[in-house]
């Protein structure tokens, strides 16, 4: 699809918008509709659109297989790490009160980090699934 000028130009314009929107969904998730899962999917969709037009190799320039694997693990570790931080703070697992003196601030920080973890893992897994299906054979 690289030969189609309209697709090429529109994709180049639209991908940054998709990525920024995914960040908005990610970080505004505490206050409005959204959150890590949706943001991760939208973020991955931006890269997948780019790859559909310019080829799967384009993704590899940004996310190699190893990078994706590390991202997948890091997101989950961030989520679980928040839980352990609560334990260290003397609270129950995933009790965000441990993150600040003020409980309300603690809740914001805690859910922010958890959703960030979700977003990273979801985006990485979505891209991994796409790359696996799009025909790359070697790992």
């Amino acid at each position, binding site marked *: 699809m690289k030969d189609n000028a309209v697709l090429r130009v529109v994709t180049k314009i639209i991908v940054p918008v998709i990525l920024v929107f995914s960040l908005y969904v990610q970080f505004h998730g505490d206050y409005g509709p959204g959150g890590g899962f949706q943001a991760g999917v939208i973020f991955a969709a931006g890269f997948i659109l780019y790859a559909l037009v310019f080829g799967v190799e384009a993704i590899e320039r940004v996310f190699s297989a190893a990078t994706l*694997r590390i991202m997948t*693990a890091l997101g989950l*570790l961030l989520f679980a*790490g928040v839980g352990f931080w609560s334990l260290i703070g003397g609270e*129950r*697992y995933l009790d965000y009160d441990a993150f600040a003196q003020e409980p309300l601030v603690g809740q914001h920080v805690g859910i922010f980090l958890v959703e960030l973890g979700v977003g990273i893992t979801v985006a990485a897994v979505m891209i991994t699934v796409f790359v696996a299906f799009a025909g790359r054979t070697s790992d």
Partner: protein
Amino acid sequence: MIREHLPVLQVVLPLVAAPLCLLLMRSVWAWLLAFIVSLAALVISIVLLREVYAGEVLSYAIGGWAAPWGIEYRVDAVNAFILIIVTAISVVALMFAKTSVAQEVAGDKQGLFYTAWLLCLTGLLGIAVTGDAFNLFVFLEISSLSSYVLIGLGQDRRALTASFQYLVMGTIGATFILIGIGLLYMVTGTLNMMDLAARLAVLGDSRTVQTALAFLTVGIGLKLALFPLHLWLPNAYTYAPSAVTVFLAATATKVAVYMLLRFLFQVFDASFTFGAMPLGGFLAVLAAVGILSTSTVSIFQDNIKRMLAYSSVAQVGYMVLGISLVSSAGLTAALLHLFNHALMKGTLFLALGCVAYRLGSVRLGAIAGLGQRMPWTMAAFLVGALSLIGIPLTAGFVSKWYLILAAVERGWWPLVVVVIAGSLLAIIYVWRVVEMAYLRPPPEKLSVTEAPLSLLVPTWLLAGANVYFGVDTQFSVGMARQAAALLTGSSG
């Protein structure tokens, strides 16, 4: 201080170890991490068991949100018993896995293999620990998805179709469970199991509640491989890597039995499940037909792994039979068989794993004369097989004895006949293996030697447990009895 957090650590430790495993990738380190974490989980489950042994119930509010609003982790005698089975089997199977998996799974996939293993362990432990119905569904999916991966990593290309078949059936099962939970949420507005039970008792009978029970029973029946919903199981067990077969055969269906018990006896009231709804007779017939038919099918299998897989379906039948008796004695027998079956099938599949390691095949024709060439392996197989039949002084005898007593107590004599007929059929299919291994001469050019010690030690650990728990029944019967009392007590 750490003691109060044990219910959550039980689940979260393997969960955190899984991504670490993914980062390690190097197979030896990944194995070591998985093994150490399994060992830690076993220690945690032992401590938990000691705490709830006196009849205490541990409750843990995740995130500090009190039940029924937040997710509650709840450990009592029933799930402490399940936790110890799952973690102990995971430790033994991982001991075995190091050598076995190195041969059966490609080197670059081994890190992923142990990641999936830890996730599966997380899911199984989570199902057991959680007191929240939706959380249970989430853990069910974690354990199911990772077990599809584990099965798909088998050497045989048919492992992929087996895994896909399981995926389709398992997803249908999980969806049914979700629909059931959704319907319950619709009528009660709560997801906490204890709260569900309290509210359902007040609400009484309705079409929605009946439908919820039906969906949950069928959904769990699929995960349980209850006849006739067992079709995914034989292929999945046959083509999975040896260590995975051991792990899943000894834990996955057991956890499903636990789910069935929790829903039938605690979330719903036993008087509703077995009184207003005719589930008792229904389950008894399915279990009896399942025991007889799958035991018969086992006799005609050429692949020993597949033979034992069909036998597993029959063994699940015994457990469901105990449940369908709806008595304290019946539940004790079901829980006891759950424990003992984990031991015997674990031993048998471990011994087969040793055979597969040396011969590369577990076909009946390939093992001629193996009793002479691999005496220790085949002896362990024999111990497991005797336990499977239910010979006195083995664990299998104890649970069948209790099952027969429970059936007699209810006066259901046909079920006694079914249990004995099932054992006789087991003698036939086991005898085919024994005859081939011990009474046929080995082929001239067959030059196999005994399996390495790293495989024999875990195998004999479980074989020894079969004999130990066949003689000293204090722990197993005591635990099963206490769990049964808890389940029937709250439903009375």
